[in-house]
């Protein structure tokens, strides 16, 4: 919360930052070399100028994020490269709070004059926004921090020679094309290096470097009057190139492609109710959609009503500690600390330290995802005054807002294997990997598919089926969770493209989970739609 004392303190901190180690030149020599650890003093200095301009123009709080984003993408199909691209984006985003209203401005003009103008524009927008304001924004307290952090990687994925990347992808395609009926194979790898310096008028100055990498592989088989594709679940990670090496795509592609070919002869699924066994390579996305999104506090409060939607987990006073979200086997933890996860940070985009907390405890809903602005809305209900550190903006030119941390389902403490679950299932469908997925705007009704499906009879896998999707309502689905895999079945999935907000922003987030079984779930046939 920003009271007068905080305001004076923050002014002092801003002045301190502004006065420290000023550099004479206006723009740094642009570079594409790998970053070094430590606070980026040039960025911190420029950010201090922006903060000073914002406070001089009436901001009681301001923050400035200087970001340099390097994105590299390679895509291939069959025996050729379909794209090699490398992009760099550098700029500053300034956020100003004037009498409880937010304003924001972003610019690529990284001169002292440029960042000051952006700060002025941010305060101007904040003052204009007061014309349509009912409730002033209050920020949860956070201790000022100075520091630096970098995703631990062995090999910077951006610096790996392009030949090595292309050779790996084409080798994977080649292996896939050896499989009978497999006519097409596509593969790719995208890498992101994000260098970000955040300075706030609370006195925080932090520089962080994040590495994120996303491989992809799809094989398509054609036979008779049918065609079927199979996409392997190659999870994106907050990792270096060593992760891609571990996946060994060239060796495994043949096995993946064989699944596409096998789908050609798979039986179309019989519609009905089955016990549903979800491989964690499918379940992670179901967690993302049906647990991650509805427990975003901004959604619950209607802030996303016009786009992503609201949430059935609302209003907070009626659900915190009361809503039976799932069965006793369901414990959901949120974090920004899991190694190799996409949402891992040391501090969020408001300078809040990485947190870990429980969202659902043995089936009962406990807490939401929050930012500094949101924490006070539910503090009386949760007893948590601080932000959980969920502020994120996809680039310097975007406004930070509440984005999903890693949201994961805890594994069974007993070592239950996937085979144990299959053996205990009399009539079931098992699904792996993410397929088509759709969920309503309050996160009740969902329909998810996968990439490969098997029928289970009498405790055994009896064969592959196709055209499968499961349709359910979130709480009845999670309350039907009756078998949970142990640590040996655990998998960390994730997405590079979690969309939310207006304008739409993309967040990168991971979800860990074991294999699980859900009783008596409705299975539909997607081949007979329409």
């Amino acid at each position: 919360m920003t009271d007068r004392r905080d305001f004076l303190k923050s002014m002092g901190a801003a002045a301190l930052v502004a006065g420290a180690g000023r550099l004479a030149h206006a723009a740094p020599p642009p570079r594409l070399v790998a970053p070094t650890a430590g606070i980026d003093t040039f960025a911190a200095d420029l950010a201090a100028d922006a903060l000073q301009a914002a406070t001089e123009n009436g901001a009681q709080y301001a923050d400035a994020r200087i970001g340099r984003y390097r994105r590299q993408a390679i895509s291939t199909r069959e025996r050729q490269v379909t794209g090699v691209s490398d992009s760099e984006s550098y700029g500053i985003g300034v956020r100003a709070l004037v009498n409880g209203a937010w304003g924001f401005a972003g610019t690529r003009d990284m001169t002292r004059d440029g960042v000051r103008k952006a700060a002025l524009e941010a305060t101007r927008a904040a003052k204009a926004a007061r014309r349509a304001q009912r409730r002033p924004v209050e920020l949860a307290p956070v201790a000022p921090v100075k520091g630096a952090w970098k995703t631990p990687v062995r090999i910077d994925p951006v610096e790996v020679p392009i030949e090595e990347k292309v050779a790996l992808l084409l080798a994977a395609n080649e292996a896939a094309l050896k499989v009978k009926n497999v006519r097409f194979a596509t593969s790719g790898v995208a890498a992101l290096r994000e260098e970000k310096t955040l300075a706030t008028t609370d006195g925080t100055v932090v520089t962080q470097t994040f590495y994120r990498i996303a491989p992809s592989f799809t094989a398509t088989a054609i036979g008779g009057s049918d065609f079927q594709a199979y996409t392997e679940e190659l999870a994106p990670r907050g990792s270096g190139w060593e992760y891609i090496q571990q996946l060994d795509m060239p060796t495994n592609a043949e096995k993946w492609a064989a699944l596409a070919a096998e789908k050609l002869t798979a039986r179309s699924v019989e519609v009905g109710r089955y016990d549903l066994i979800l491989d964690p390579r499918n379940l992670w996305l179901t967690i993302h959609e049906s647990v991650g999104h509805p427990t975003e506090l901004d959604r619950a409060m209607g802030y996303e009503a016009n786009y992503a939607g609201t949430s059935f987990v609302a209003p907070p006073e009626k659900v915190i500690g009361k809503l039976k979200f799932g069965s006793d086997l369901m414990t959901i933890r949120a974090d920004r600390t899991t190694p190799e996860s996409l949402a891992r940070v040391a501090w969020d985009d408001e300078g809040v330290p990485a947190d870990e907390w429980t969202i659902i405890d043995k089936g009962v809903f406990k807490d939401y995802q929050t930012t500094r602005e949101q924490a006070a809305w539910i503090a009386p209900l949760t007893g948590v005054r601080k932000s959980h550190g969920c502020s994120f903006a996809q680039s310097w030119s975007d406004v930070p807002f509440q984005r999903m941390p890693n949201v994961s389902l805890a594994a069974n403490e007993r070592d239950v294997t996937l085979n144990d679950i299959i053996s205990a299932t009399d009539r079931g469908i098992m699904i792996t990997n993410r397929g088509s997925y759709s969920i309503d705007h309050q996160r009740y009704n969902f329909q998810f598919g996968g990439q490969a499906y098997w029928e289970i009879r009498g405790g055994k896998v009896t064969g592959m089926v196709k055209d499968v999707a499961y349709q359910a309502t979130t709480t009845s689905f999670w309350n039907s969770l009756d078998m949970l895999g142990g640590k040996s079945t655990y998998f960390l999935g994730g997405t590079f493209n979690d969309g939310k907000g207006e304008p739409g922003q993309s967040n990168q987030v991971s979800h860990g989970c074991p294999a699980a079984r859900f009783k008596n779930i409705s299975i539909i046939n997607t081949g007979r739609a329409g």
Partner: protein
Amino acid sequence: MPIRLDARADLQAITKRALSYSTADEARVVVRSTSTGQSRFAGGEITTSGSATDLTVTVVSTVGKRRASASTNVTDDASLKRTVELSERLAKLSPEDPELMPELGPQQYAAVKAFDAGTAGLAAEQRADAVSKLIAAARAADAAQDLFVAGYLEANTLHGTAVATSKGLFAFHESTDVSLSCTVRTPDGTGSGWAAGGAREWAQVDAAALGRRAAQKAVASRNPQAIEPGRYTVILEPQAVGDLVPLLMQAFNARTAEEGRSPFSKRGEGVPQGATMLGEKIADPRVTLFSDSEDPDLRGSPFEGDGLPTRRRVWIENGVLKNLAYSRYWAQKRGLPESVAGNGDGLKMLGGTQSLEELIAGTERGVLITHNFYIRFLDPRSASYTGLTRDGTFLVERGKITRSLKNFRWNESPLLMLNRIEAIGRAERIGAGQVMPSLKVRDFNFSSISEAV
């Protein structure tokens, strides 16, 4: 918002500077200069408001049959030079591309006026005033309740996009677009209504009217009742059609169709490889769908990213599949002229003469759909998708809206749907570059009920 000076000359200067550093066999430079102003609101107040400006330079270098691109938004001489060098280095490292097409030389472009000073100059204060007007109009629609009003206003200015190649091509285009959408919810949480408008010109957006419309829908949609899922006659408002019909654009890809993996592929025993449904009836004879940058309602970009001029492209004419979308490579491979590539920007489906109200009045029993959400691909063979209705789903009986309905999940193919048309209503602009009619369709497949409001 920056003032527009001579964007064409400024951008051309950047392309020249970048091309001057090129040592590749061929090079292309694409410059985009943008600014955006955005105001987001919820709970009857602005929650975020801001602006951003950017300018990106993308350099595509070709060395022999090898090609790669690099882009930057840092445009001093040293950075531009470094970006050109990076693209050349990446190109040299890339394997040869057997499908590589040479860069284009000079082209002729249609003049498309799509820039509005009113949109480009829309300042934070004007955005806040428009939002206030919308909120006031929405809340006044039912002053007895504390209606929850959320929405988003975005004004984008493309100060210019320029494409230049080492073979003498230069293309420039500038445009604006503005969109305002809002969702109004009733305090009991049982009603939700939505309305949106978009145009190239700010003056064409009526904030108060949108607020009123969304509020009226919210109030009318309170206490929705469930009816059995199944196949129903539906009346899709223009936005609901706009959620579905544009999905077909993906299916119009010629290569995918000829490769046997599209709904327009002919498959089965005895069918020659590469056969498609081009020239065959694929929809109701009243359906005509096209892209055309020069259409006054669309006003899209007169060129593609490689500088190839866009042309009017009729996808479906009177129900017949008239064209497929070719890349330059695929056109050449098929021995077709280069002009078959270069697809028009924007999408327009021709409408009929009936108003939405007349469609409703002529319906014995049906479901009225305001718009749709979370649409995802189900099956590429039939171009089928799943999605949900949202923010105003109503039962129509004997020509009148009789009650509010719970939302549905549907599993449906926009292509098959275009074969089950009962009536086509008037077409209207649903956003910059998109014109869609309302449609009455029979046997629309609702697969389950959603409790979401």
